[in-house]
Each structure stands twice: as C-alpha cells, then as structure tokens.
C-alpha cells in the first residue's frame, strides 16, 4: 500500500547540505499500523511530508496506492489523509462543518458524500453539538478532533498521523487512539509518528526507529524487543538511541 525505497532528503541550509532523512526504506501493508519513532529533529515530519507530496525526495521513490509520489502527486494526495500534529490549524472564521466541507470538496467529494461522512465522523468524534460553531472558540481537543475529521473526510485508504495526540489531555488522547484502532479495523493503512511509547505499544504492528535521519532499527514490536533484549519499547528506544 505504502512503499518507501531508499528515500533520502537533503535540505540546503545556509549554503550547506543537510541530510534530514537518509536512505529510508519501509513498506506498510493494508490494515497495518506502522510506527515511526524518533527524537526531535529525527526526520519524522520530513518523511510524512514526502509521502504527502509537499516535499520531493532528493533520492529514492515513494509509492502510495500504486501511484508515484512525484509523477502522480495529485492522485497520491487523494488517497491519503494527513494529520499534522502539534498546533493544528483550522480556519477560525469558518464553522467546524465548513472547515470539514472545504477539504471534502477539495478532495473531489460531492455534497451528498460530504454530508454522509460528516454525519458519520461527527458521531465518532462527538462533534455533533459543535458542527455549526466557528472554530475560533474551540478548545485544543475540539480543534484536534475537527482536524481529524477534516483529514479523513474523503475516507482515504492511507492515513498519515504525525504526533496526533501531542498536546491533548488523557481523555482526548484516548478518543484519538480509539479512533485509530477503528480505522485499522476498517482496513486502513496507517503511518503513525509519536513520542509516546505507550501509544506505539498499544497501536503499532511494526515500527521503525529513526535518529538524525538514519534508520537504527525496524521490525515488529516483538522483534525490536528481542533485538535489544528489553521488556518495553521505551527501554528499547532509549537503549538504541544511546548506543548510537
């Protein structure tokens, strides 16, 4: 469903080359949740951006749902839903419904399909009472849930979640995690980046540990634990990063 082949991203920073992602390869199968774990600046967001086609890989190829991310970028964007973590942005002067509708239309949905999806997603995220209120007054959690609905309004096959629970309280995080589990049940292909190892343990089938753009370790969670001879992903992560 999602394949990265020897992907490298080089930025030019103050006239020097800076390698943000180096020779990264992995693939994610349908219905699988794949974790991308790394410290700040490891290259997680850069990877997500390359898959979402807003950045082009300097070397290597990315294939999403059979489309090449460079040659067929518009089709790639149609079959992915991206949620950028941290401080998610909504149009404050538009209502939650208008925000979600906007992205639905841009992804080529007709009004009927949009209304059905909004009905469904607002049920799942408990957005019902808020749909027709302007987003400017929303709490962080409400915003994140609206962004979530907006990102997947077109029911994409592949979902990219970049630190989806960053800045959320426990209850809101729990809702998000539950939703990701539901997506998996629906057979979606999910790439999840996170700092939260508990979250990774709870959700991911496989994971990849990345640091300074380099792949340090990858495989199923059990695999990683075995390789590092540890009992938890948190321990494994610290051990691997420190050794490097």
């Amino acid at each position, binding site marked *: 469903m999602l394949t990265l082949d020897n992907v490298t991203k080089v930025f030019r920073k103050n006239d020097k080359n800076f390698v943000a992602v180096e020779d990264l390869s992995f693939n994610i199968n349908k219905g699988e949740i794949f974790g991308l774990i790394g410290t700040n600046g490891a290259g997680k967001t850069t990877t997500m*951006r390359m898959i979402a*086609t*807003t*950045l082009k890989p300097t070397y290597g190829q990315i294939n999403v749902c059979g489309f090449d991310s460079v040659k067929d970028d518009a089709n790639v964007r149609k079959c992915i839903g991206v949620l950028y973590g941290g401080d998610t*942005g*909504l149009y*404050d*002067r538009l209502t939650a419904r208008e925000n979600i509708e906007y992205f639905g*239309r841009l*992804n080529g949905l007709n009004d009927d399909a949009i209304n059905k999806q909004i009905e469904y997603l607002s049920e799942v995220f408990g957005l019902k009472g808020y749909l027709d209120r302007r987003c400017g007054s929303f709490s962080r959690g409400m915003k994140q849930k609206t962004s979530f609905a907006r990102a997947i309004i077109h029911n994409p096959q592949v979902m990219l979640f970049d630190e989806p629970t960053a800045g959320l309280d426990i209850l809101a995080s729990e809702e998000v995690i539950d939703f990701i589990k539901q997506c998996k049940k629906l057979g979606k292909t999910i790439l999840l980046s996170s700092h939260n190892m508990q979250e990774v343990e709870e959700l991911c089938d496989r994971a990849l540990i990345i640091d300074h753009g380099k792949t340090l370790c990858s495989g199923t969670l059990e695999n990683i634990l075995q390789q590092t001879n540890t009992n938890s992903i948190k321990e494994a992560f610290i051990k691997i990063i420190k050794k490097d």
Partner: protein
Amino acid sequence: MKNKFFNQFSIVLKKELKDAFRDKKSIFATFILPLILFPIFFVIIGMSSNSITDKAINPKLTIVTTGTESSLSVNSQEYKYFEENIFSISDDLKVNYVECENFKDALINGDIYLALIIEENFLNNINDVTKSVNIQVIYDDRSTSGNTTASVIVEVLNAYSDALLQDRVEELDPDISMTPVVGSSLSLSQAFDDIQRYGTDSTILLLIIPMLLTMLISIGGASIATDLVAGEKERNTFEPLLSTGASRFSILSAKYAVIIIFSFLSAIAEVLSILISMLVTKDMFATSAFSSLYLPFSGVILVVLNLLMLAALFSGLLLILTSTSNTLKEAQSKSTVIMFLPMIIAFATMYTDVTDISLWSMCLPIYNVVISIKLLLAGVMNYAYLWGALAINVIYAILSVFVTVKTFSKESLITK
C-alpha cells in the same frame, strides 16, 4: 483536466471570499473606513475654506498714519471716509475695525490681519486731482486669512481708484471711453460647437481620481494578501491545504483572483465614496463635472484593461511577499514597503500636463496607468499611449505571474 482546475479554483475562491467577508476588521479597513473618511475629509476641507472666505469678507484691520504706531479712532474722519467711500464698494465686505496701541504688535499677535498706512493729510490729498495718494497695506503673511484679506483690500482700493478716475475723466469729457480695450476668452469647445469635448475639467477629479484609483488597484488587496498565505502558515492551515487533492496551481490561482477582486472592490469603494462626498458637500465641481463628463467607450475599455494588468502585476508581487513570509507580521511589514512604491510614483504624476507626455513614461509601471486615466478623464484621447501602456503592462503582468508560479512551486513554501 480543465474542468477539474475550475472546480478546485472555484472551491478555494468561494471559501476565501466567505472567510474574508467574515473578517470584520479587514472589511472595515478596506471598505467602510474609506466610505466614512472621504466625506469627512471633504466636509472639513469645505468648512475650512468657507471659514477662510468668511474671514476675508469680515477682515480685522486697523488704520494708522505714517510714522505713528497707534490706530486712528473708529470715529476719526479718515475711517469714516474709508467706510463710506472705499469699503462700501464691495457689497460683501464687512470690515471689523480694531483699534490698537501698536499695530505691529497687533499684527504679530494675530489681533488684526492687516494695517492700512495712510499719509497725514490723506483727506486733503484724496480730493486733490493733481495728487496721488499712497496707501500701504501691511498684512500678516503667516496666515491664509492675512493673505486673502490683503488681496481683497488691495482689490477694493484699486476699484476705488478706478471709480475716482472715471469720475474725474467724465468731468473733463463724458465721451471718453473708460474701457478702450476689452479682452475675453473662449475655450475650444465653447468657440466651436462641432468639437466633441471629452472628459472633465474638474481639477479635483483630474488630480485625485487617477492617483487614488491607481494606488488602490495596486495595493488595495494587500491586507487580504498577507492573510492568504502567511496567515495560513501562521495558523498551520497551509500545509493541510496543500496536502489535499487540489493542485497547487488551482489553489494559487484562486488566491491570486481573491487579491485582484479585493483591489478592485477597494478601488470602487473609494471612487464611490469620493463621488458621494462631492455630492453630499454639494461641491462646486461636482455638478458641472458630472454633467460634462463624457468618456469614449474604447478609451474606458483600454483604461480598465490597463488597471487589470496593474492589478495582476501587484497581486503577483503581494502573493510572492506573503508566500515568502512565515508570519502575518513579517508579511505585513514587507507589504508596507511595497505600499510606498505606488504612492511615490503616483504623486510624481501630479503636475504632468496631459497634452505633453513623454513616451518613455509609457514603460514605467503605475506611472503609465495614472497617465492613462488622466488622459481619459481630461478627454485627450492619445490612443498610441493607451495601447503602448497596455502592451507594456501585459508584459509586466506576465512576468509577475511567472515569478509567482515559480515561488509557489518551491518546496520552501510549506516550511517555516
């Protein structure tokens, strides 16, 4: 493919317009404020010019004999003579006579606008046909009222002198003509009715409208432009937008169109507000300016096309500015810089004579548009200039679009 583009274009355009019109602050600044400010501006100008004429026809003045400092009394023979014979020549003039100890101090302090210095034996000399009487007018040149009062009084003195002369000549021989030469002038269109006079001769229209229209068309979209990309970046909505199925090009085009729409809307709002204020203040030029305003259709079309190209040029520039800024603040300070450009260039055209335009000015963006509007409004249909300016403005617009597309396809667009 084409269909898809227009579809995405209109989705983004609709959303941006809805979003913009919900932004009360920017709507207020772009449309409501000028609608209020211009009428106020005109009323104030009208009031102050009225008060100047008021003061000129009710001048505060005094009369002093040469060599002395203090005024003649209001009951003096001399003042009586002035009041009955000289000041009465003008029906409007109502002198406000001020007696003062020291006329110089009174002038400096602004107690009076002017002092009339007369000779000691003024009353004798004025009735002596062999003599010429000197009257010196010392006025306060620091104030507009002083200046106008002085010219009003000198005019009255001259008129009195003419009247005296006429009396004296008539006494000698009543058949001598008092107006041996009479000059009068007629404008081209007054002289020949077969000349179609285009345009207007209202100076305010000729001076203000071309400058204002050009400035607003160039930068009227600035405030919305900063919001369109830098604002989206600041609020973290830009990257999600670029990650949707829509193409970058359709998003860019829609944002481009929004800026052009706003610059035209703000220009229309300003022109409307000027027209409204002229009508409201019943300005002397308003009625005559409009009754005589006749513009040839082809000229109007050429000017509108020139304006459109200018809008395209500046919308591109503004989009580039906002796209290369990461925060609203940054975009705003960049656009402040660009705002001075049209202002300075537009002001440079202030004293350009429409019948004597150098061709090289055709190549100057902004400048050539102000001149084009001036030509149209003044009724000088210099089609070579209008077409030439249009051709050059098309080139600028294409360049601007090209650079904008380049900027928008850069990767650095999304990163902060």
